């Protein structure tokens, strides 16, 4: 219809000539304004097009507004749309003229054509002019009720537009409620989707001021709503599906079966071609299974393939977004991806941002089995045309070397890099070699030989030069011409621009001098002279220091500069695990691409509807003077740190306050709950205990931070260390400004006691408490579980101000305090933090029946002063343990090899008539069945509650719970007084991870007056820990510490140690070990078992060896488990000589060697390619009467080895020997290796013989048959092929 625009004067719309054109257009538009002539519409279209093209390229055509509106009276829909676009763009700047458009838009909203109604409504609400909102309500209301779904779709998002123009108009017209109704009832899914997105935005922003809105927002996550969406998910468009999935990811299911239902329902979404849908689904899966370690791991396995497919399909940009997420997962669980390393190889034409990610992944997944190939690949990239990538690749090689895999080969590679003679390659390599030597000094000999050949003139980059100089100094005794090289560098002192290099040079020359004085003397003199004359402060000072040191005493200098060095075992990780967890929580968002949590790059107001930080962002302020300032700030949205929004309620309350410029919020007592007085008293009590007035308490905090300040002697408490101004005044503007400018002087994380959490349900009480300490609140906000407060305090008699941000999450009972201060003195901030102290886990906690942990202030007399110091010391220790332990809080992958968690297990391992009966019965009849069951069943020796419960739990947790309940009831009925059955019951709870029930058992023990012992607590702690509830476990531990009869014993510590060992968190584990020692318990066999297996698990072999030695020294004999772990560690370190030693020890001590040990050994020998060792081992084992399976393992290993090397004769000999001893192959893998060897050597006859031999003792598997088929087919041996086929048929594989 539209004729091509050939006959125009301006050749291209992108080159307008400016003002003249616009006024020209104005004239033309006027001419056509009222015209109804045929063809007028076409002419108008051309004109409109021009106007819009000007608008696009940024020429201001707002002066045409009037003319455009006049021309818009038309029935031509294309013209209408162009006009709407224009009006939408300029109305905001011309509110008066915009009024002109209202008329025709309103008319169009009532048009017959639903298309026009929709378009008009959309444009009407897009005008963004505040004084026109009154005209919007009517059309919008009828639009929501329109019979046409297109109009309703438009109206649903138009409500949101209205909300952004005038929130009050929108809420007053009750639009959110209408939207909610539509969302839950409309037939059209796009209408539903738009309602959902509008409501999410509206309620999130309303939630700060209206409780109802926050309730509504919570209701979006309620089960019926979530299920409503999930059941319809396939009807939604792919984009709306993303919206729904994002919502579901925040849903907290009530039990595991619900989780599996949701995952099953969504599983096919993983095969969607739209990457956004797949990632959103993955997020749901990951979030749902966070608490189920093994299922979580299965999720990883399941999502791997779809992610890889997405990476390789779609555009470069799309695959980058997916790759970033894959990167995150790989970094979290490298082990799970270690066999997929080939997918992370870089391709020549990939952009560098993709290559960078891939290099990091390759580095992460490197392990003993793939290192060789990965490093080979990385070495290829070192010659890459793209220099930054070449550098990254070399660094990656170095990182792998530092991870301890196959260092041997890598060092050779690195040294080869040095021979490439490319400046940047040499530079990067030198830095790496330096780091490598710091970790593995044993390589110095090889490295130094090569490094010595590098001319320092070819190394220009400061970092590389510094590294070279460091090596020259450190190894000057091994490098022949080190003194002369250093001398020549010193000669060029003035040309050396980098201070870092000069600093290193000074140190290196001195080191060299101390080793080879006569040769270096000249260089040292020159270096010191140059250093003293250096303009750089550090260089000058170091030169001076060395000079004086040498003057004072050369041997002291030697001790200072050249002490024996310890190898560095671990290099620091750059990103804290908290940050990593935060990013993981924000899966499928930009946080993953930027590799930072969202608070680091978004303004608070722009965070998503359900993000943690968003809730913190909605703050209310209680200042009467602020109401003029604050709304402006909100609209301007230019603030990065704070959003202070005004709640009307607070305002009116504030107004009654007083006339002062600013005051902290006051709350009238009527709004307090009935239990307020009780709360108050609790807070008052915690007041005396929270160390607000005691100096030693702030020292405890010091201690926590490792500042090492000695404890003050017990003396009457001096006045508070920090006197605060009770009537401090600060206006919000200043606060905001200061908060933005000042650096954080102190940031601390706290764990809170349950009663502290309880108190926070009424933040007002908390605020009052703070005010009692002259710490004033300036803004607060958030709903459960997240609260955020901003406080300020002023020092008495000084203008110095402290600003405090306090974030509390009540569900995890954790808090974070950030303090900023005018006075940068850190200790002041520290004492303030002590004063602020909101609820460090309390010591005086007793367990009471029927209530969860709660404080009971009346029972406990005030502790004596001595005891108090003691307690404080204790607390420091507990906090230290806590802070270490906290890092292990999140479920990590590679978790507990849970014996109890067999969730996906399909068959019960032990068939037990009772179990089968229980599985079939309905839930309501469980107890009856148990009652009716004969008592003998439970007493018989092969009956195990353990197995019964774990199996039962995998199919129905509710039934398992009932069984437990039944047992408890029975014990109560029988009036059981013995401790043992109860203990047993608590242990059973740990099997099914039912902490609440364990607590119930505990309560009923107390109720029956059974004397509590440490072992009861130990059992409880074990239950908590094995259910992943670390906080409760720690609280229990504290209770034990403060109790009289149930002090923690060695067993308690062992429990913690073993759990952290299973979690692979060796830092926390060692912290607990130290705590155990500190508490005066010596480690026993079990401790060492946990410690060693934990160290080996986290690949900290040095520690494992150390613990082993320690254990041997203390006279404890190892058990099989320990030996296995040590062996594993040694095998992974590839130290064959140590392995031999250990083996000898085991043989001598007649230890049993088990199958997995044998496997490890064979793996090690296999890698070293030493058949002789294998034979030796076999002989030894045969002599020491080891088990059948172990021997078989070794036999197979030998055969495999020969097969791999194509040594057919040796192989056949070994096979024959094995068969003679009555053993046969263990797995098809070994047979296939043998078959492949035959194929490679084309020895088909011998293959037949071999197969004939083993036929009697081993049944071939399908894969072996497949292999044979493939091999014969390739060789073209059709007869044999047929034979094999027959064999397969006989074996029933067809």
């Amino acid at each position, binding site marked *: 219809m539209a004729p091509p625009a050939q006959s125009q004067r301006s050749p291209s719309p992108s080159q307008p000539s400016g003002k003249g054109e616009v006024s020209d257009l104005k004239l033309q538009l006027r001419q056509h304004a009222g015209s109804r002539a045929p063809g007028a519409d076409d002419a108008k279209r051309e004109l409109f097009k021009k106007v819009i093209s000007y608008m696009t390229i940024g020429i201001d055509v707002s002066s045409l507004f009037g003319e455009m509106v006049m021309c818009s009276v038309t029935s031509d829909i294309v013209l209408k749309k162009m006009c709407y676009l224009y009006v939408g763009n300029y109305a905001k700047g011309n509110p008066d003229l915009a009024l002109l458009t209202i008329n025709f838009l309103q008319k169009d909203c009532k048009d017959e054509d639903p298309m026009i109604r929709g378009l008009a409504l*959309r444009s009407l609400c*897009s005008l963004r002019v505040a004084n026109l909102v009154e005209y919007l309500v009517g059309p919008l209301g009828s639009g929501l009720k329109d019979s046409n779904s297109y109009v309703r779709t438009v109206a649903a998002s138009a409500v949101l537009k209205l909300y952004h123009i005038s929130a009050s108009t929108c809420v007053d017209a009750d639009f959110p409620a209408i939207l909610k109704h539509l969302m839950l009832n409309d037939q059209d899914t796009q209408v539903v989707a*738009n309602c959902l*997105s509008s409501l999410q935005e509206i309620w999130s922003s309303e939630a700060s001021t209206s409780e109802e809105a926050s309730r509504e927002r919570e209701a979006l996550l309620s089960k019926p709503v979530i299920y409503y969406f999930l059941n319809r998910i396939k009807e939604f468009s*792919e984009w709306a599906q993303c*919206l729904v999935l994002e919502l579901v990811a925040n849903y907290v299911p009530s039990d595991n079966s619900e989780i599996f239902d949701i995952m099953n329902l969504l599983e096919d979404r993983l095969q969607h*071609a739209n990457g956004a849908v797949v990632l959103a689904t993955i997020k749901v899966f990951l979030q749902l299974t966070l608490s189920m370690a093994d299922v979580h791991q299965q999720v990883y396995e399941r999502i791997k393939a779809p992610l890889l497919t997405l990476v390789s399909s779609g*555009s470069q940009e799309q695959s980058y977004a997916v790759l970033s997420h894959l990167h995150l997962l790989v970094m979290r669980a490298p082990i799970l991806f270690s066999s997929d390393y080939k997918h992370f190889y870089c391709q020549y034409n990939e952009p560098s941002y993709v290559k960078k990610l891939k290099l990091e992944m390759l580095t992460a997944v490197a392990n003993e089995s793939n290192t060789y190939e990965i490093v080979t690949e990385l070495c290829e990239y070192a010659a890459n045309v793209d220099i*930054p990538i070449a550098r990254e690749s070399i660094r990656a090689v170095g990182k792998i070397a530092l991870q301890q895999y196959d260092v041997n080969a890598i060092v050779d590679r690195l040294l080869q890099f040095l021979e490439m003679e490319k400046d940047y390659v040499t530079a990067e390599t030198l830095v790496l070699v330096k780091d490598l030597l710091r970790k593995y000094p044993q390589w110095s000999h090889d490295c130094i030989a090569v490094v010595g050949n590098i001319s320092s003139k070819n190394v220009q980059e400061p970092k590389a030069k510094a590294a070279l100089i460091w090596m020259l100094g450190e190894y000057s005794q091994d490098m022949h011409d080190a003194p002369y090289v250093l001398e020549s560098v010193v000669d060029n002192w003035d040309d050396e621009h980098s201070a870092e290099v000069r600093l290193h040079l000074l140190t290196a020359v001195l080191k060299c001098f101390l080793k080879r004085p006569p040769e270096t003397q000249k260089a040292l003199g020159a270096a010191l002279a140059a250093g003293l004359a250096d303009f750089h402060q550090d260089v000058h000072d170091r030169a001076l220091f060395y000079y004086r040191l040498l003057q004072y005493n050369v041997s002291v200098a030697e001790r200072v500069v050249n002490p024996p060095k310890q190898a560095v075992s671990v290099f620091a990780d750059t990103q804290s695990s908290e940050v990593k967890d935060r990013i993981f929580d924000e899966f*499928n968002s930009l946080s993953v691409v930027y590799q930072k949590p969202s608070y680091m790059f978004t303004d608070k107001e722009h965070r998503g509807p359900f993000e943690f930080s968003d809730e913190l962002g909605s703050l209310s302020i209680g200042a009467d003077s602020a109401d003029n300032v604050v709304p402006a700030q909100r609209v301007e949205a230019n603030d990065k740190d704070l959003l202070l929004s005004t709640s009307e309620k607070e305002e009116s309350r504030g107004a009654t306050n007083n006339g002062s410029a600013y005051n902290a919020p006051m709350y009238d007592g009527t709004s307090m709950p009935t239990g307020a007085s009780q709360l108050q008293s609790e807070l008052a009590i915690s007041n005396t205990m929270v160390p607000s007035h005691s100096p030693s308490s702030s020292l405890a905090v010091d201690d926590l931070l490792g500042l090492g300040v000695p404890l003050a002697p017990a003396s009457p408490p001096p006045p508070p260390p920090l006197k605060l101004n009770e009537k401090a005044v600060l206006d919000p503007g200043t606060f905001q400004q200061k908060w933005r400018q000042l650096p954080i002087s102190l940031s601390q994380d706290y764990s809170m006691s349950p009663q502290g959490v309880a108190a926070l349900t009424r933040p007002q009480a908390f605020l009052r408490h703070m005010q009692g300490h002259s710490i004033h609140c300036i803004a607060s906000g958030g709903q459960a579980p997240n609260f955020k407060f901003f406080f300020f305090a002023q020092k008495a008699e000084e203008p110095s101000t402290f600003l405090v941000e306090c974030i509390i999450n009540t569900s995890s009972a954790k808090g974070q305090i950030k303090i900023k201060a005018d006075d940068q003195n850190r200790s002041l901030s520290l004492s303030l933090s002590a004063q602020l102290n909101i609820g460090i886990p309390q010591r005086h906690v007793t367990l009471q029946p029927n209530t969860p942990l709660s404080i009971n202030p009346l029972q406990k007399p005030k502790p004596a002063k001595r005891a108090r110091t003691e307690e404080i010391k204790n607390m420091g220790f507990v906090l230290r343990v806590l802070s270490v332990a906290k890092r292990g809080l999140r479920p990590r992958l590679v978790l507990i090899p849970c014996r109890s968690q067999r969730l996906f297990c399909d068959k019960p391992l032990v068939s037990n008539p009772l179990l089968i009966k229980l599985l079939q019965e309905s839930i309501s009849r469980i107890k009856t069945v148990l009652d009716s069951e004969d008592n003998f069943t439970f007493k018989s020796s092969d009956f195990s509650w353990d197995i019964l419960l774990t199996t039962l739990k995998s199919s129905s947790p509710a039934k398992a719970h009932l069984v437990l309940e039944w047992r408890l009831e029975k014990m109560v009925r029988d009036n059981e007084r013995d401790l043992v059955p109860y203990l047993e019951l608590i242990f059973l709870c740990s099997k099914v991870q039912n902490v609440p029930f364990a607590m119930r058992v505990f309560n009923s023990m107390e109720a029956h007056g059974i004397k509590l012992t440490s072992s009861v607590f130990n059992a409880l702690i074990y239950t908590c820990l094995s259910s992943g509830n670390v906080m409760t476990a720690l609280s229990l531990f504290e209770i034990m510490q403060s109790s009289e009869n149930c002090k923690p014993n060695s067993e308690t510590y062992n429990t913690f140690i073993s759990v952290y060992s299973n979690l692979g968190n060796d830092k926390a584990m060692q912290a607990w070990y130290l705590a155990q020692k500190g508490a005066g318990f010596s480690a026993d066999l079990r401790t060492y078992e946990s410690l060693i297996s934990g160290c080996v698990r986290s690949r900290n072999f040095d520690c494992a060896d150390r613990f082993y030695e320690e254990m041997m020294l203390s006279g404890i004999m190892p058990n099989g488990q320990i030996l296995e772990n040590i062996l594993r560690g040694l095998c992974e370190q590839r130290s064959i000589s140590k392995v031999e030693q250990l083996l000898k020890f085991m043989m001598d001590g007649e230890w049993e060697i088990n199958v997995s040990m044998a496997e490890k050994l064979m793996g090690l020998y296999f890698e070293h390619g030493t058949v002789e060792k294998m034979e030796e081992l076999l002989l030894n084992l045969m002599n020491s009467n080891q088990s059948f399976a172990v021997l078989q393992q070794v036999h197979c290993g030998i055969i495999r080895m020969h097969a791999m090397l194509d040594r057919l004769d040796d192989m056949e000999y070994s096979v024959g020997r094995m068969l003679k001893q009555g053993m046969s192959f263990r797995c098809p893998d070994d047979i296939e290796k043998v078959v492949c060897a035959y194929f490679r050597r084309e020895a088909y006859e011998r293959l037949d013989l071999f197969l004939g031999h083993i036929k009697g003792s081993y049944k071939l598997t399908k894969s072996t048959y497949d292999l044979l088929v493939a091999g014969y087919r390739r060789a073209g041996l059709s007869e044999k092929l047929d034979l094999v086929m027959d064999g397969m048929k006989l074996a029933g594989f067809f």
Partner: protein
Amino acid sequence: MISQFFVLSQRGDNIVFRDYRGEVPKGSAEIFFRKVKFWKEDGEGDAPPVFNVDGVNYFHVKVAGLLFVATTRVNVSPSLVLELLQRIARVIKDYLGILNEDSLRKNFVLVYELLDEVIDFGYVQTTSTEVLKSYVFNEPIVVDAARLPTLGPASIFMQGTKRMPGTAVTKSVVANEPGGRKREEIFVDIIEKISVTFSSSGYILTSEIDGTIQMKSYLTGNPEIRLALNEELSIGRGGRSIYDYNSSTGSGTVILDDCNFHESVHLDSFDIDRTLTLVPPDGEFPVMNYRMTQEFKPPFRINALIEEAGALRAEVILKVRAEFPSSITANTIQVQMPLPPYTTRVSFELEPGAVGNTTDFKEANKRLEWGLKKIVGGSEHTLRAKLTFSQELHGNITREAGPVSMTFTIPMYNASRLQEFQWNPGATAHRNVTGFIALNLFH
């Protein structure tokens, strides 16, 4: 949610610019363009598709030399936005037939109309060409395809495109044919990206096929289409890799590592007879993406040999052998090889009697390019290139050249043997296979 969407030309002009929420300050297009253009100068290679400047997140994809950009201040899903940008480009292409700067400038009003319906207040409404048809009233102004430089297979090497552009299909989905008739046609392209790494002795070290079955339907009345894939197709590699010695023409089990499907595809009978059922929506879309690491026989075998010939000279010999039956012919073959950075001059020598060959040395990025019009199955072609260097060689020259990559189109052939047949009475079906091989030769 998205705040703004705009399309920039290669020079940074706004071609379309739409602000949905008014949250991002003015001048974002300039800020974006400056950042992308000068990214390299900071030594970090290309600008990543997502970055943040002053709290504003910029997303972009490059399509046909144009930058499709979205901005937002919210922490959204990057996949969602990038996918959307790609989808917007595809919808526009469906409408205009050809997507380039020229066609976009001529049709910007139509594009605005589309954008109005695709996104509302930052939330995606629909990206289906089919659905959009009922809301869009502008007629596309068709740009003459003949005047355009062809987007041959070489365009695959253009930055930002990993995938071949859909081959011959450059007709608008909505525009009427000259003469008012509409042909009942459906185009099915199988595009396979083949990556192979050979060891120095000629063994295949790694091989992977990333494939897409792409469809563009011009059928009226939305008939149901059935695609029958290779019956012996299995998905997911349960076991370890087994030897597979079948030739590519014979039948045998095809094992895909994984695949995904367009939402219009019904998989009801897929498990039984490997048939996909779908009602193809208007416009171009991928029916299925798949990934395969099973061993296969690549359609071409490439040999590259570099020999030093004195201190400043070397010779490259490239040999391409077509390993498919002689009944089949491959078209528009393009072979490329990066040469050492110090190469200054290259002279080429073709076999006597070679026709339809083009050779070129791209000075700017030091790349050798060799184009062949067609290769008949079973034939072999050789190119000799004499290189002159500006500096003396040291070290291993083979490390600094390569890898060799090639693109080609072979009608009625695919390397993965994932055959498909479509069944649709009364419609013309076009079927095409486009491949792209990247070979790393010097391991």
